[in-house]
């Protein structure tokens, strides 16, 4: 049914159609024939997640409502909420900076406030829906094992989505007003990533410093934390009680969240157009001068390519932040490493696979930028250089950057244990090479600015890269104790790589 043109419902129909088609295109990488495969994949994932949820929360579905239960629910909800704020901030920044239909809307005689209000509400809905596939299996198991009261958890997710969007909107607008459009574009993305990572990393850091373990569970179950937690009748537990299906807390949490969102919409929607217009002018606004002569030295074509890759990466703070954000997750293992020096080598056994995993993931991102994210592919392809030299230069640039980042950590391990350092170095090298190979096999031409979408352009490449990194991390973990047993995960990792190679597209690449 079509709503009356220009009304909020009409705009909502328009927005939801755009969001649906964008999501469909993202999930199928623009190929509708993949929809069936993707649907089967999603169903398989959801079923699998229900098994995982059964193992994790099944035994606790009928737990007593004590401090331990409330603390666990609150912490889990807080973790999810941080990720939702991060997701909402990214969506809002995209909405501000994507030119898309802005000219059309602002040039039309309709009241744009309504559309921008709807657009913000759509972001809230999207943020909530993004959380559901991960949360739903756990909630379903809790309902199945613990009763209908756990339905309240779905209400909590909805409230969290609304509150996260309101808060993210406030943060982004505050950045916009304080720093201006240019800085906000970069900083909002960094802040979003930091918010997303900070909570989980913070918990790990506290756990390491307090209990010498990377596990968050040790912290959450500690007597110290329980002693510090508020009393059972505290309002701070209301979100947790809402998840447990208690009506008053659930109603209060929902009402507060929607009130926050309504205020945010009322305040920001009338100004949304101005923000977006200001943001749209950023591209041509300022001039950045670079006086250095990066290519003045005599360089071989390969050297010029390698230098170019490093310069482009260094000069793009957004790409750099996106890539190096993965390095944030190295903080806890680095802390473990530091603590491990004056203890035994158990800490190293945990650190080595984390480093290997991180190296694989970092190399995957860098390899995509170097191999697929080439802004002037025709220029490189028409250069009088053999294709294999071009590729070798790009691969050298990737592996060089990985080596530069991980060398200090491996050097630190060498002081504690040369054997672990050897395993770490080998693992980092192999995992980085494997991820680079996957990106090479699945290479497709794209702009560097599409970096964020690289993972949806080929789901297979993403999974292959992730499972390969996990496989090499497991190999490194086992190799620290026994070389022979390490052969098993290594073979699995090789199988992943072999399968990836066999299913990779045989594109008609000139170089």
């Amino acid at each position, binding site marked *: 049914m079509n709503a009356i043109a220009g009304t909020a419902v009409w705009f909502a129909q328009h927005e939801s159609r755009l969001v649906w088609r964008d999501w469909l295109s993202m999930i199928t990488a623009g190929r509708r024939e993949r929809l069936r495969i993707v649907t089967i994949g999603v169903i398989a994932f959801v079923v699998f997640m229900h098994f995982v949820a059964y193992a994790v929360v099944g035994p606790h579905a009928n737990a007593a409502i004590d401090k331990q239960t409330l603390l666990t629910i609150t912490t889990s909800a807080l973790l999810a909420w941080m990720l939702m704020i991060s997701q909402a901030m990214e969506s809002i920044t995209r909405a501000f900076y994507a030119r898309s239909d802005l000219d059309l809307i602002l040039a039309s005689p309709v009241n744009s406030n309504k559309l921008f209000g709807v657009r913000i509400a759509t972001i809230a809905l999207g943020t909530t829906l993004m959380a559901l596939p991960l949360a739903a299996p756990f909630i379903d198991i809790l309902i199945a094992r613990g009763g209908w009261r756990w339905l309240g958890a779905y209400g909590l997710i909805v409230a969290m989505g609304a509150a996260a969007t309101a808060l993210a909107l406030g943060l982004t607008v505050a950045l916009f007003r304080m720093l201006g459009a240019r800085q906000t574009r970069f900083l909002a993305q960094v802040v979003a990533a930091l918010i997303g990572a900070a909570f989980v990393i913070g918990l790990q850091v506290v756990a390491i410093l307090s209990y010498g373990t990377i596990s968050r569970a040790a912290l959450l179950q500690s007597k110290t934390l329980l002693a510090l937690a508020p009393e059972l009748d505290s309002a701070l537990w209301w979100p947790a009680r809402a998840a447990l299906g208690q009506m008053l807390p659930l109603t209060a949490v929902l009402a507060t969240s929607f009130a926050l969102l309504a205020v945010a919409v009322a305040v920001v929607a009338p100004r949304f157009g101005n923000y977006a217009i200001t943001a749209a002018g950023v*591209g*041509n*606004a*300022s*001039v*950045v*001068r*670079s*006086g250095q*002569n*990066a*290519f*003045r*030295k*005599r*360089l*071989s*074509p390969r*050297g*010029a*390519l390698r*230098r*170019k890759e490093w*310069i*482009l990466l260094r*000069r*793009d703070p957004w790409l750099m932040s996106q890539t190096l954000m993965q390095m944030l997750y190295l903080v806890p293992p680095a802390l473990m490493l530091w603590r491990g020096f004056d203890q035994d080598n158990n800490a190293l056994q945990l650190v080595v696979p984390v480093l290997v995993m991180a190296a694989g993931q970092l190399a995957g991102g860098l390899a995509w930028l170097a191999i697929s994210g080439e*802004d*002037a*592919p*025709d*220029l*490189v*392809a*028409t*250069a*009088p*250089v*053999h294709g294999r030299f071009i590729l070798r230069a790009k691969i050298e640039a990737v592996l060089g950057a990985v080596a530069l980042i991980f060398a200090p950590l491996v050097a630190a391990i060498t002081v504690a244990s040369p054997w672990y350092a050897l395993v770490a170095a080998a693992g980092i090298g192999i995992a980085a090479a494997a991820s680079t190979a996957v990106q090479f096999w699945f290479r497709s031409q794209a702009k560097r600015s599409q970096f964020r979408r690289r993972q949806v352009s080929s789901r297979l490449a993403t999974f292959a890269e992730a499972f390969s990194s996990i496989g090499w991390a497991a190999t490194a973990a086992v190799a620290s104790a026994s070389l022979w047993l390490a052969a098993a995960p290594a073979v699995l990792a090789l199988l992943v790589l072999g399968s990836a190679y066999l299913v990779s597209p045989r594109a*008609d690449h*000139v170089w």
Partner: protein
Amino acid sequence: MQHIAPPTPFALEIHGLVKRFDRPAVDSLELTVRTGEFYALVGPNGAGKTTTLRMIAGLLRPDAGTIRIGGIDALAEPVVAKQIVAWVSDEPMIYDKLTPREYLEFVAGLWGVEPALAASRAGTLLDWLDLAPHADERCESFSKGMRQKVTLAGALIHEPRVIILDEPLTGLDAGSARQVKDVLRERTRTGGTIVMTTHILEVAERMADRIGIIAHGRLIAEGTLEELRHQAGMQADSGARDGGSLEETFLALVAAPAQAA
């Protein structure tokens, strides 16, 4: 550095060139361009112009046929052929985070030009294209015209014998288009060969020594404007009338095969 063949009478020789996608994009194309010639390739949308140029530039492999650039077999020895060719497309091929000077030095590095020589040429080209005041600014703030001029400078930094341009004037303002045309004219005056596609028929009419009209992947007519008029069955002296323009000639020539089909 690869050995580069001495100049030959023909800058470009194409025989039996075929490329199929879902349908034939280029169909047994025969094309010859003399050294020092400005050759314009015109044709309706989807005629196969860009596909042809991309195969010449080494960006696309033909299904059949031969391409010789300056006497070099471009399919058997692509790296040697690329040494004397430059490619410019309608989409500027630059890096936002590099300055024009760095971009030119990078391109020079790819083509193995001595750094001192590259710096000197870069200075000249930047002056020539009015880019000198912006030489050390990153390209991210540049307009389409400035970007295209940087790309053109990159194409010239290694002094190619053959420059292949695919709609290089698309989206340029009058001033930038004029500068690009001046640069191209100067190249042909100094012995360079230009092969260019364009939708702007006046540009082809005024600049090209010869014009090739391509339709359905085949060269349906070729020659000077006068020769094309003859082929179209027009009067040789019709230039004084509106009907004698390349536009009229082009439409008459393109319409004939379509009607026959």
